[in-house]
C-alpha cells in the first residue's frame, strides 16, 4: 500500500520535474495561469512548454510561481548539493535590528510569531565594551554537537555543509537542543497553527509543515539554494548585512554586491562566534567597526515586547538610567 503510493508520487514527481525542466530554461518554475492576452509588447511575452509538448507564448504578468513544487524529498534532502560548501558572513557593522530577516524567515517557514530560527541578540561582551546587534541563524557547524548526540539520525550533516532536521524521524528527545551551544534550535511545544503545505509536501529542506513534539531550526533555506536562490534572510535584509555563498568558489553575496570570501575575511578581520568550542561553524561575523548606525537605532521602532527582551543588557540598563535622571 505504502509502496504503491510512493511509486505513484515518484511518477508524479517525474512528470512534474520533466515539465519543469522544459520551462525552467525560460523562467523559474512557472505554470500557465491563463492564455496570452492579445495586445502586449513582445518583451512581455515568455515562451512556455505545455504538458502535451506545444510551445506557447504567454504574458509574463500571467505567470505564477509554483511554491514548493521543487521541494526535495526526504531522501533527496540527505545528499548535499554537489560542488558546494555553503558559508554565511554576517556584517555586524551594518545591522540595526530591523528584524526583517527574522520576519522573512518566519514567513517562509510558517513559524509562529514566537518561534525564531533567526534570532537577533543585543550582545555586550563586557561592561566596558561596546554593545552590538548579533543576528544568529543556525551555524551549520562542521563539527556539529547536535548531529553527534541525536539518537535516531533525525538531524544530519550534508556534503554541502548544511545541517538539517527530518521532523518525520525526530522523536523529540531534545538532546540536540541541550547539545547546541548557540541555542539555535526551537521545539514545537504544541501543534503548529497555520501551515501552508500539507504533510505529503513535506521536505526537510523547508521543514513545513512543522510537527508537534519535534525540533526545528534554521535550514539555510536549503530549498531556495536548490533553485539557485539566496536564503530568505539574505534577500530580506534592507541593509545587506548577510552575505551568503559557496566557499569552494570563494564568493559571497548579499544580493547587491558580490565579494571574495577570503578577501573580506582578511580586510575586515572576520571571526566565528565562540571559536574555542571547536564546533567549527559555517557562519562568520565581521566585527562592528565603522558602524553604519548607532546601536540605539536598533531599539527604535520596536514594539514593547521586543524592547523588553533587551532590558537586562548593561548598555540598555545604562540608557534607562540616563532617561530616569533626565
Amino acid at each position, binding site marked *: 500500500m505504502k509502496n504503491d503510493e510512493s511509486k505513484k508520487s515518484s511518477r508524479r514527481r517525474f512528470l512534474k520535474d520533466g515539465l519543469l525542466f522544459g520551462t525552467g530554461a525560460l523562467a523559474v518554475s512557472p505554470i500557465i495561469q491563463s492564455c496570452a492576452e492579445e495586445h502586449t509588447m513582445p518583451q512581455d511575452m515568455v515562451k512556455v512548454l505545455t504538458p502535451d509538448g506545444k510551445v506557447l507564448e504567454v504574458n509574463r504578468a500571467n505567470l505564477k510561481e509554483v511554491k514548493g513544487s521543487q521541494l526535495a524529498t526526504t531522501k533527496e534532502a540527505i545528499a548535499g548539493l554537489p560542488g558546494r560548501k555553503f558559508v554565511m558572513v554576517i556584517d555586524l557593522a551594518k545591522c540595526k535590528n530591523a528584524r526583517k530577516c527574522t520576519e522573512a524567515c518566519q514567513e517562509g517557514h510558517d513559524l509562529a510569531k*514566537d518561534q525564531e530560527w533567526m*534570532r537577533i*541578540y*543585543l*550582545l555586550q561582551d563586557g561592561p566596558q565594551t561596546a554593545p552590538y546587534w548579533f543576528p*544568529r541563524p543556525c551555524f551549520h557547524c562542521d563539527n556539529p*554537537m547536535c548531529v*553527534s*548526540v*541525536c*539518537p*535516531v*539520525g*533525525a538531524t544530519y550533516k550534508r556534503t554541502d555543509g548544511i545541517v538539517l532536521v527530518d521532523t518525520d*524521524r*525526530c*522523536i*523529540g*528527545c*531534545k*538532546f540536540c*537542543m*541541550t*547539545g547546541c*551551544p*548557540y*541555542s539555535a*534550535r*526551537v*521545539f*514545537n*511545544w*504544541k*501543534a503548529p497553527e497555520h501551515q501552508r503545505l500539507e504533510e505529503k509536501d513535506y521536505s526537510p529542506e523547508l521543514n513545513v509543515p512543522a*510537527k*508537534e*513534539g*519535534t*525540533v526545528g531550526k534554521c535550514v539555510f533555506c536549503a530549498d531556495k539554494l536548490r533553485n539557485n536562490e539566496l536564503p530568505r534572510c539574505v534577500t530580506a535584509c534592507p541593509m545587506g548585512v548577510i552575505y551568503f555563498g559557496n566557499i569552494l568558489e570563494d564568493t559571497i553575496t548579499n544580493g547587491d554586491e558580490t565579494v571574495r570570501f577570503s578577501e573580506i575575511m582578511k580586510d575586515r578581520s572576520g571571526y566565528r562566534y*565562540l571559536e574555542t*568550542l571547536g*564546533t567549527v561553524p559555517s557562519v562568520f561575523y565581521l566585527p562592528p567597526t565603522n558602524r553604519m548606525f548607532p546601536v540605539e537605532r536598533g531599539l527604535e521602532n520596536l514594539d514593547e*515586547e*521586543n524592547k*523588553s*527582551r*533587551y532590558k*537586562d*543588557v548593561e548598555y540598555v540598563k545604562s540608557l534607562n538610567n540616563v532617561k530616569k535622571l533626565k
Partner: protein
Amino acid sequence: MKLINSYSKGKLHFMNTFDSKSLLKDFTPEIEKTSLTWWIVLLIFIMIFLLGIFGLDRQISEGHIVTGMRDNVVWGIYIVNFIFFMGLSYAGALISGVLHLFKSEWRKPIIRIAELITVISLLIGPFYIFFCVGRLDRLYFLVLYPRIQSPITWDVIAITTDLFGCILFLYLSVLQDLALLRDSAELNVPKWKKKIYTFLAMGYRNTIAQRKHLEQARNIMAAMIIAIAIIVYSVLAWIFGVTLQPGWHSTIFGPYFVIAAVYSGTGLMIIIMWLFRKIYHLEKYITLKHFSYVGYILLIIGAFYGYFTFADYLTKWYGSQKMDAQLIDKLFSDFFWLFIFANYAGILIPIIIIGIPKFRTINSIFFAAIITLLALWVNRFLIVIPTLEMPYLPIQDYRPAWIHYSSTWVEWSLSAAGIAVFAILLMLFSKLIPIISISEMTEPEVNTEDNI
C-alpha cells in the same frame, strides 16, 4: 540448630539460629492476610497514580506546552526524576551485590529490600524519559534507527542490560523462598497464589546440585550487576558531560553521578527498612545494628559525595571562566536555599548524625536518610535546571516562562505517580514473598570470622 555443629572454630552469630520453619511462621501472616489499612493505603497510592495518568493524558492531548519546559529549559523535573530513580536503583546493586560477594553476615535480613528497590526504581526511571520525549509514538525509532554515537543509544543499551540483570538477580535470590512457599503445607493462601509460587519456583527442589548452580549464578550476577550499574550511571552522567554546556561539561561527572547514586540509594534503603520494620513488625530481625551498618555506608558515601561536589565547584569557582562564574553566581542567588540544602545540609546532617555515636538511633538514622534522599533530588535539580537557564548566548526573551523554569501540576502529578507506583509495587511484592529472605537467613556461613 543443627548448624551449630558445623562451626567448631568460628564464633557463632545469633542469625544462624534461625531455621526456615520458624521464619516462615513469622513472615507468613503478612502474606496470608491483608489489613484494612493496607488496602486504604494502597487505594491512596492508586489515586495518586491515576492523577498522574490524568496529567499524562493532558500532556499527550495538548502537547508539552502544559509542562513548564520551554526552549531554553528543555529538560525539567522529568529528567531530574529520571536521574533520581535510576540512582535509587543503586541501593540494590551496591548493598546486595557487594555484600553478597563479601558474604557479610548482617546483610541477610535487608538484602531483599535492597534488591526490590533496585528492580522497582529501575522499572520506573525510564518512564520519565518517555514523559520528556515529544513524540512518544516514535519511541521505537530508538531501536529501529539507532545511532551508536549518541549517548542516548548508550543509555538504551545500558539500562535494558541493567534491568534484565537486576531482575535476574532478584529472581535468583527469591527462587529458594518461592520453592519454600510452594512446599509449605501450613501456608494458608488462595489457590492462585500457590499457582504463582509453583510457576515461578520452576521445579526448584533444593537439591545439592541445584543449590550449587544457584549459588554460582548468584555470585556471577552479583559481580555483574555492580559493573553494569557503574556503567549505567556513568552513561547517564555522560548525557550531560559530553555536551559543551557550562556546569555539565565536566570529566568528574561519571564518578560523581555514581557516588551520588549510591548515596541516594543507601538513603532510600534505610527509609524502606524503617518502614517495613514498623509496619510488618520486624523489630526482631532488623535491629539498630543493621541501621548503623547501612548508616556507616551512608556516612562514607556521603563524605565522598561531599568531596566530589566540593571538587567540582571549587575548580569552577577558582578558575572563574565567565560562564562558570555566572553559573556559580546563579546557584548562590536564584537557587541559594536549594543549594545550601542539597550541598551543605544534605552532606553534613547525615554525617553528623551517623558519625557521632550519641546521635545514632534508629529514628535519627531514618531522619538522616530522609534528608539525604531529598537533598539528592534537589542536587539533580541544581545540575539540570540552572545550566539550561544559562546558555552561552544570554536568553533574550519577552516571555517569562522562557527565561525561568517553573514546573507545572502536570509534571508534579507525574512525579508523584512515580513515587506511588514505587510504593504500590513494593506493597504488592511484600504480599507475595517475605520481605526478609528466608533462604538467606538460614544459609550457613562459610567462615564467620571474616564477617563484620
